[in-house]
């Protein structure tokens, strides 16, 4: 096969992934698709992170720990993102939604 070290393959995949996802992130307006693109960018960045540092024989444990932390942080952000998507959906859907309109006066004040 073409001589290409694992590290640079990971690097290239990560870079391409991040590029693709970043462009789509800026163009799509459906919120869930945007969050998916965000996750893909996260995956791409972690690939780059480990790809950059993966040139020692047993892959260097420190970047792996960083990648692990990155994954957990991405899931935390995605979770909050989805909660907000639901909140946006409740706000902008004209039909009544289950959680009542508290603080009417505070409501239009912040419009």
């Amino acid at each position: 096969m073409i001589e290409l070290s694992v590290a640079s393959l990971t690097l290239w995949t990560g870079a391409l992934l991040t590029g693709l996802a970043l462009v789509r992130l800026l163009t799509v307006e459906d919120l869930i698709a945007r969050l998916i693109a965000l996750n893909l960018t996260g995956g791409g960045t972690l690939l780059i992170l480990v790809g950059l540092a993966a040139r020692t024989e047993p892959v260097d444990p420190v970047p792996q720990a960083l990648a692990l932390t990155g994954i957990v942080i991405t899931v935390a952000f995605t979770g909050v993102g989805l909660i907000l998507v639901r909140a946006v959906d409740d706000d902008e859907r004209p039909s009544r939604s289950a959680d009542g309109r508290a603080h009417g006066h505070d409501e239009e004040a912040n419009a």
Partner: protein
Amino acid sequence: MSPETTVGPLQLSLALALIVTAAATLYSRHRLTGVVLFLVFGVFLSIYWGVIGAPDVALAEAVIGTGVTGALFGYTATVMPRPAHDRRGSIARTIAGLAGGAGIGAGLGYFLTRAAAAPPGGSGEPVGLTGQATAAVPATGVEHPITGVLLNLRSYDTLMEMVVLLSAATVAVAFAPRSDAGSSTRGGAPASEQRGPAAPPIVRGFVSLVAPVVLLFAAWLLFAGSTQPGGAFQAGAALAAVMILVQTSGVGRLRIGPAMICLLLLGVLAFIAVGLGGLVLGDAWLLLRGEHAGTVTIALECILAVTIGASLAAVFLASAGRRR
């Protein structure tokens, strides 16, 4: 699976598969196909991590990056009504998007490889901290280097990471569906959320079969973490999977109530307690050396796993709970 230094057919095909599924997910026509393709992408990515010799990251990607995130996306996409217009982007826009993305990716890749290829900073010592890290791991009371780094060498990172999860959980508590808005019920909400249609027997059977196995798997992951890939995060995610399964199948009903909130607090509190203990006994925060370091780490991991599971479940409830 010791990683070959040169790229074999498996790695190449996986890399290609990753790029193709990513493109398909990003430019999928409907929201649900996007989510399903995202799951497929997650599976490929997990395998890819395993193949290039990062088993821990592979496991984490599988359980958290694909498992829990997939569940979150899946349920939120299905519960939310489909938007009026679906994403009817024209072919030309898709091609342009793909070309643009590939261009930026190629540019980034070119610069990154050039930077990575350059010999590391003149100090000439072996690249990365592999040597020093593996040398220091025995002192942490845990054999597996990754867990050693995560829970001892750089335990402060993990503590801050737990704070990130705590923050997500707090947002979940704030946005919990009114009926089970945890400890701060403000006035009775309208009809409390019913359980939905009674679960069909086969589902109940499936859940009662699979749930214990996954719980066992979570426990195994936790304890395996000290010697081989595994650890608190993966175990926590498995726990969350069980909770999500129970909630969605309707077998049981979870609320973000005082019990759940207590679980949310436990992990960070325990970590800070260990940190304080390290300061009092040793002379630095989070100091964990000596013979009983291993047992303390394991105990801490158990609590962390429970909290991570509870946090992810809370986020699931807040985002995917039925509104009507």
